[in-house]
């Protein structure tokens, strides 16, 4: 097992990793930008290194400085968290080359899954269900038109290197396809430096379902059930839950088996998430694989009792999976709310000093956050400042618990999305589980 791990991240996920390391008896090194010198994640670590100024490109994404920090502190491994360098195949490769273990999949895994069109192709060739559409990159407008006619309109054009909604275009009829194709290519090139695009059938009001997988170096793979992440605003998840209200044991087994086969197809290692679309008839289609720990991993931990960060570390250290698929049981129901430092109506960022911070507690309530009274939310990074997670015997109890926990949560001095979460949890459709990825836009339009 590792003796010392550098945590190449900040905020709640850095603290989350540090906590797991402490429980495993592993020393930790925090890195931080100048803007984060007083942050809780820095104080929680055994050692700390300042790696640059506030701008992430010069600090948390600064590969030379991060690796120098790892070298001068003599760590065995680096945990990248999510975002920043976590899906950077080059970084993973350099780590491997200098003998520092990258806690995550192989650099080949990251590179292959980072090319969304390629990933679709590999999975489809295994005979697994992918969203209907083009296989591989579209070479031309003609290619696009042919593919679109095959699956029928509407279609969505996506960047092969894409993410976060950039480089996407929904096309409703053939005559709009040419212009949309060119626009998507141009946006993909300017955003990702790669003009590759592909297209898929565009589903109306689908659910976003993802499956957590674990794989050891011997190729043994298990899954820990699904997460329903349909509550999104502009492709940004806001609320996640497990189990999904629409997935029964049979469908869970089916989708789980496909997820396991999909990652086996690419000799995937460590922890990953396979994303699916679920249509109204409960058909599911592979979309992509996320090669990092997900923000919403805690809800899976709550129902399975399995500490995913510890599993990541153990697997990276070369241990084999000791949990067999039949040992995995899902107890009760868990939901996560992402609390962002944003105006809950206009969604404008709301950085600033937190004058009072008091997190909810008691049975079935978990808070993952690096905030505290007197902390400052700096404007340079992601606006998510806390994850509020509840667990209950069933969905109803998890929801009731979330509502009382949202009422207890005090974050003064800045605006947060807590009022929006209250609105979501008060909604009758949400309470019944009748949601899709269109739910939040519809709620906001009311």
């Amino acid at each position: 097992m590792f003796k010392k791990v550098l945590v190449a991240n900040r905020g709640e996920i850095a603290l989350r990793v540090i906590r797991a390391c402490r429980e495993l008896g592993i020393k930790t090194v925090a890195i931080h930008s100048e803007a984060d010198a007083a942050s809780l994640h820095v104080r929680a670590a055994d050692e700390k290194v300042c790696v640059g100024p506030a701008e992430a490109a010069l600090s948390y994404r600064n590969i030379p400085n991060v690796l120098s920090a790892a070298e001068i502190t003599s760590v065995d491994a680096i945990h990248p968290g999510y975002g920043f360098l976590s899906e950077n195949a080059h970084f993973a490769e350099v780590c491997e080359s200098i003998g520092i273990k990258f806690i995550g999949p192989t650099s080949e895994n990251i590179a292959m899954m980072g090319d969304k069109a390629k990933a679709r192709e590999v999975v489809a060739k295994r005979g697994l269900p992918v969203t209907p559409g083009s296989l591989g990159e579209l070479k031309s407008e003609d290619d696009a038109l042919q593919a679109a006619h095959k699956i029928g309109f509407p279609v969505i054009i996506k960047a092969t290197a894409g993410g976060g909604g950039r480089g996407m275009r929904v096309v409703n009829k053939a005559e709009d396809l040419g212009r949309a194709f060119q626009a998507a290519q141009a946006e993909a090139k300017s955003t990702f430096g790669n003009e590759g695009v592909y297209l898929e059938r565009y589903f109306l009001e689908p659910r976003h379902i993802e499956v957590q997988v674990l794989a050891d170096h011997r190729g043994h793979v298990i899954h820990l059930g699904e997460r329903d992440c349909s509550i999104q605003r502009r492709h940004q998840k806001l609320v996640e839950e497990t189990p999904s209200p629409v997935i029964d044991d049979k469908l869970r087994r089916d989708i789980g088996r496909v997820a396991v086969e999909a990652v086996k197809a690419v000799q995937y290692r460590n922890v990953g998430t396979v994303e699916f679309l679920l249509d109204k008839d409960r058909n599911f289609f592979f979309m992509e694989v996320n090669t990092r720990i997900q923000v919403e991993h805690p809800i899976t931990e709550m129902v399975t009792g399995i500490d995913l960060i510890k599993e990541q570390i153990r697997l990276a250290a070369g241990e084999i999976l000791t949990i067999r698929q039949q040992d995995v049981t899902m107890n009760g129901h868990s939901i996560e709310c992402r609390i962002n430092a944003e105006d809950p109506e206009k969604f404008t960022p709301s950085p600033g000093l937190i004058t009072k911070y008091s997190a909810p507690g008691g049975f079935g309530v978990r808070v993952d956050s690096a905030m505290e009274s007197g902390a400052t939310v700096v404007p340079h990074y992601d606006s998510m400042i806390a994850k509020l997670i509840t667990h209950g015997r069933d969905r109803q109890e998890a929801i009731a618990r979330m509502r009382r926990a949202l009422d207890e949560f005090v974050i003064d001095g800045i605006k947060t999305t807590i009022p929006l979460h209250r609105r979501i949890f008060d909604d009758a459709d949400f309470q019944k589980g009748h949601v899709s990825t269109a739910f939040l836009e519809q709620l906001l339009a009311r």
Partner: protein
Amino acid sequence: MSKRRSSPSKKKPRAIILPAAFNSEAQDLLLTGGQTKQIQDLIDLLRRNNLTELELERQGVRIRVRHEAGAKAVTVSAQDAVPSAVQPAVRPTTAAGSPPDDTAGLVTITSPIVGTFYRSPSPDADAYVEEGDFVKKGQVLCIVEAMKLMNEIESETDGRIVKILAESTKPIEYGQALFLIDPKATA
């Protein structure tokens, strides 16, 4: 009882008695430990109660503690009748664990990268510079090793090396102060 209904007080009305001799002969410039503690008490009061502003005024001495989202201000001012010969003592606070107090007018050379600090190009060689040396702008002061590469750190100014703040062969952070240079010194 309705929510937030205030509770009754059965106690005798609490008289808030401030001493008649709540005054002082102004002579000294600095805060006593006790007074600093009291300002801290005021700040604690402010913070604990999540207030925006707290003001204390007495004998021409006014203390106002204000707290706004995103900023903190502590103002201690004296509108004393006889400010004559009195000089306000301004103390710059110093950066965490780095340069000493007396850095007014000095230039601090900091590390632009994370790595290992070396004062000489090789273990046997002389140090690039010593304290007291005069240096030119652009002159190499030290090496910071990072990713197996030796990065020469140059002086940003002409001047005299007042203090070397890091120890050779030790790891350093981004932004860590390495040298203090007096740019006004002349050889």
